[in-house]
Structure formats: C-alpha cells, structure tokens
C-alpha cells in the first residue's frame, strides 16, 4: 500500500520535472537543432531535413563578424570585471578599516546611488562620453562602469565579517593599510570577490542599451548588439545562420555557467544570506 503510494508519487514528481524541463529547454533545443538545418527547409516550416550540416556555422563565422563581436565583448567584460574588483574592494576597505570624518555619510551616499537606474541617466552620460571623445571605443563601455555601488556594498558586508582581532594582530605586526588590504583582506574575502567577479562580468556581457548608443562599428560592437545588427541586416530571414550565431554566442557562457556553477551557487547564497 505504502509502496504503491510512493510509486505514484515518484511518477507524479517525474511528470512535473519533465514538463518544467520541456518549458525551459524547448527554445534551446529548437534553436540548436535549426542551426544544423538549411534555411530553405526552415522557412518552409520543416523541422526535419535530409541535409543536416555545419554550413550555417561556417557561414556565420566567414560571412559575419560574429567572432569579432565575441572578442569585443570579452575584452570589455574582462576589463570591467578587473576594474570593479580593484576599485570596489578598495572603496569597501576604506568604509570598513579607515577612520575618517564623514565616512558613514559618504557610505550612505554611495548606497543611495543604487537607487538610480543607469537607464534614467543615459542622456547626460551620452553627452559626457561624447565630449570626452570616448564614443565608438572599448573605453566607452568600460569607463562608466569602473566601479559599482552594488559591488562596494557587497564587499563592505564581506569585509565586516573579518574579526577585529585580525586587524589588531596586523597592527601589532606593523602592516600598512596597503599590506593589510592585499595580504589579509582580499584573500580572506575571496568567495565574495569571486561572486562580484562573476556578477560584474555577466552584467557587462549582457549590456545592451549603452553599447547600442555608443558604438557604431564592428571593430568595437559587443556581441549583444552584434546579434541585433545581424538580425537587422540582409541576413534577417536567414534563420539557419542566425541560430548558428546565437549558438556560437551562448555555448561559451553555458559552459562557463555549468563549470562555475558550484562556486557560483555557494557565492550567491552567501551573498543572499547576509
């Protein structure tokens, strides 16, 4: 009796899991699958073809700047990530370990900037980067994001967890602020730093509106806006090639996600609990 009940429950559980899996996976599977079909067949609405091939991938790589777009995104995201790790951790250090007048007021001011969406500030920011001559260059996608209030906030919470005895011991040892920062604080908070690294990299990788406004050539255009470019060009109805381009873009991030998931999950949870 109990066995039959638990068997029924298992079947129910697998059914739920299967339905959810289909909802999540269908757009992926269909996208990947059609990237192997000739566009002529796709546009007839066929989901099967006798001509499965990698032709769409070859076409995407040779006829479009997709690899260049990927490279651009990689450059911008890595630079942004490194800058945020450095500048956010330095600021967080100041807010935790340095004593100066107006420190808490300044911290709340920084915190308050989290309320201001970048999307609401694009008009003056566009004028600023134009007058700084940064338009259509990697710098325009990195400079405004060299630091982030969220990153400072998150790392400050992490640094606050460092026991005061550690700081006292460092003072006795005669460590300078730079030494304490580099040799003790950063290694101590490496999980939070890893979380910020992943977060800032992904945030930069997924930027869409700002690069769309500020880059005009394939030499600097990042991959999100590159895919937009491909769709709006003559390739618009070349579904096979567009799906292949999407696959080329999404496969690396999926791999990174799956490999890094273990670390990322523990980091996210740590961040969410605090």
């Amino acid at each position: 009796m109990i066995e039959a009940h638990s068997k029924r429950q298992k079947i129910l559980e697998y059914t739920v899991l299967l339905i959810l899996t289909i909802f999540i996976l269908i757009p992926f599977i269909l996208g990947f699958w059609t990237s192997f079909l000739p566009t002529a067949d796709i546009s007839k609405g066929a989901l099967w073809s006798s001509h499965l091939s990698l032709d769409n991938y070859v076409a995407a790589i040779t006829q479009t700047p997709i690899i260049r777009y990927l490279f651009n995104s990689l450059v911008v995201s890595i630079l942004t990530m490194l800058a945020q790790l450095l500048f956010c951790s330095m600021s967080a250090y100041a807010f935790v370990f340095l004593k100066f007048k107006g420190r808490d007021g300044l911290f709340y001011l920084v915190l308050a900037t989290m309320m201001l969406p970048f999307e609401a500030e694009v008009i003056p920011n566009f004028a600023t980067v134009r007058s700084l001559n940064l338009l259509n260059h990697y710098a325009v996608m990195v400079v405004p994001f060299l630091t982030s209030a969220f990153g400072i906030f998150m790392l400050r919470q992490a640094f606050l967890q460092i026991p005061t005895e550690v700081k006292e011991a460092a003072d006795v040892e005669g460590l300078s602020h730079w030494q304490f920062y580099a040799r003790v604080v950063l290694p101590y908070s490496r999980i939070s730093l890893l979380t910020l690294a992943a977060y800032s990299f992904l945030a930069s990788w997924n930027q869409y509106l700002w690069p769309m406004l500020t880059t005009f050539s394939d030499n600097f255009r990042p991959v999100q806006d590159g895919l937009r470019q491909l769709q709006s060009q003559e390739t618009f109805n070349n579904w096979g090639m567009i799906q292949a381009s999407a696959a080329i873009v999404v496969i690396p991030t999926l791999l990174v996600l799956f490999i890094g998931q273990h670390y990322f999950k523990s980091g996210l949870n740590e961040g969410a609990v605090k």
Partner: protein
Amino acid sequence: MEQQVTNNSKKLKQLPQNLSSLKTVSYDVNARDKLHAIWFLGPSLLVLAVFVFYPMLRTLYLSLFLTNNLGKPTVFVGLQNYWSLLTSSSYLASLQATFVYVIAVSILTLIFGLLLAQAASFKVKGSNFFRTVFSGTMGVSVSVAAIFWLFMFNPSIGLLDQIASVLHLPVINWLTQPGWAMTAIVISTVWMNLGFTFLIFFGALQTVPVNLYEAAQIEGVSKSYQFFHITLPMISPTVFFVSIITLIESFKSFGLIDLMTAGGPNNATNLLVYRIYQDAFLNGNYGLASTESVILAIIIAIFTFLQFKILEKRVTYQ
C-alpha cells in the same frame, strides 16, 4: 630657486613623519587614515560623481527645459514637461503597459521559480541533471533569448503556431497583435529570469531545517500544507528579496523589447525605458525624455528603498 623651495618643502614633509616614528605607533593614525581614504576611495568616487551624481542632477535640470536637437537646453518651461506627460494619453498608456508587464513578469517569475526550486528538491534519481537544466537560462543573454523566442513566436515557421495549426487552433500573430505581443514579451522575460531566480530559491530551500518537515510528516500533514505553512514562511525573506529585484529589473527592461517588438504594435509594448530611448535618441526630444527619466528614477527609487528596508529587517532578525 624653485629647486630649493621644493627641497625645503620635502624636508618639512619629512619632519613630522620622523617625529611620529620616534613617538608611539598610534600617533597620527587619523591623519594617516585620512590620506589613505583619498587613495582608496578616490577612483570610485570620481567615477560615481561623473557617471551617477552629475547625470542625475543634469537630468533633473534638463527635465525643466525645452531642448534643441543637440540636447542643449533652450527654453525654461518649469514643470510643463511633467504636466504634458501626465496628461498625455500615450504616455499614460506606456505607464499602464509597464505596470502590467512588471506585475505579470514578477508574479510569474516568483511562481515558476518556486515551482522549479521545489521540483529540483524532489528526492529522485537524476535531480542533479534537472538542477543544471533549471539554472540554464542564466547563461542566456538578452539577444540570444530574443532570437530563440522570435523563432518560437514566428507565425509561419514558429513551433507555437505549427502546433496550433496541427491542433486546428487559430494561428496567432504573436508579435503583431497588441495583447499577444505583450504576452510574448512577458513569456520571454520570465523564461530569461528563471535561471537566476531558481538558483536563489533553491539555495534558500536548503536552509529550511529538515526536522520541521519530519515533524510534519509524523503529524501526517499534506505536502501542500507543508509548502504553505512551513516552506513559504521560512523562505519569505528570500521571496521578498527576489520579488523586489525582479520588479526593479522589469521596470528597466529594454533589450527584449527592442529586439522583439520595437515597442509595437501600436505602442502596446512601448515600456518606459524604450520610450526614453525613442524620445531622446530617435526623436531628439531630450527635455521630454529627461522628464520621463526622472519619473522612471522615482518609481525605481521607491522600490529600491523598499528593498533596503526589507534587507535591513532580515539582517536584524537573523
């Protein structure tokens, strides 16, 4: 002569340092900290000042002006821009569409996120596989998601309408009929959100003490009762946290709209950020677009403030 002056000032600078090293270590700690604060904080504060504080003030300022097509303010009009927006039926329609979108996306993201997290916690074989799949959309960027769903929603070759025609259901022009276009955008956004939401909820579920469920099992309480009376209250801080984050992110939605509907059909998906982009960068009406930005910022500030309040509560309770 100049050389000498600098030499002298160098000596002057060295003097107190030498003195302090003779005295106790803690001497002058405040001055030392103050100097370090400039180096540690300087870069971040500079960037925030130029790209966050200044543009905020500038946007406020521009919102009170008419502007020329270069974005330079020309005529001071006071609150005229605000008045004309809040009485414009087209702007109010945008505002309404945004609220519909934000509420629908948030509710569906929460429900499906919880469902995924709960399902991934089933003690069945292969649950690791399901966990990996459920977090998968986190690796999908906005333009890839748009391509996947543009294909799904395509009226002639998309899967949804192919299924519809097999089942002799009416074929829907998903992206060219106002109500359906909004539905399509909501589905795509929720799908994109789920990877992240799932990970957060799944993490939260692991923190619920197992003995609570064991006690419930002994009492013979049903699964749904367990969910609503044990699980949900235990993870309610996370639920609040996720709902506010989702709300804020949805108010800022731009990419999917630009790629899938371009605000159409008939402005049915012309949400706030897309409108700012259109008015400023396509129509050259920077004053009006600044006013729209201020309104957007106020809405988001309110929700962010709520988020802080909730986070504060969590910290004190734990």
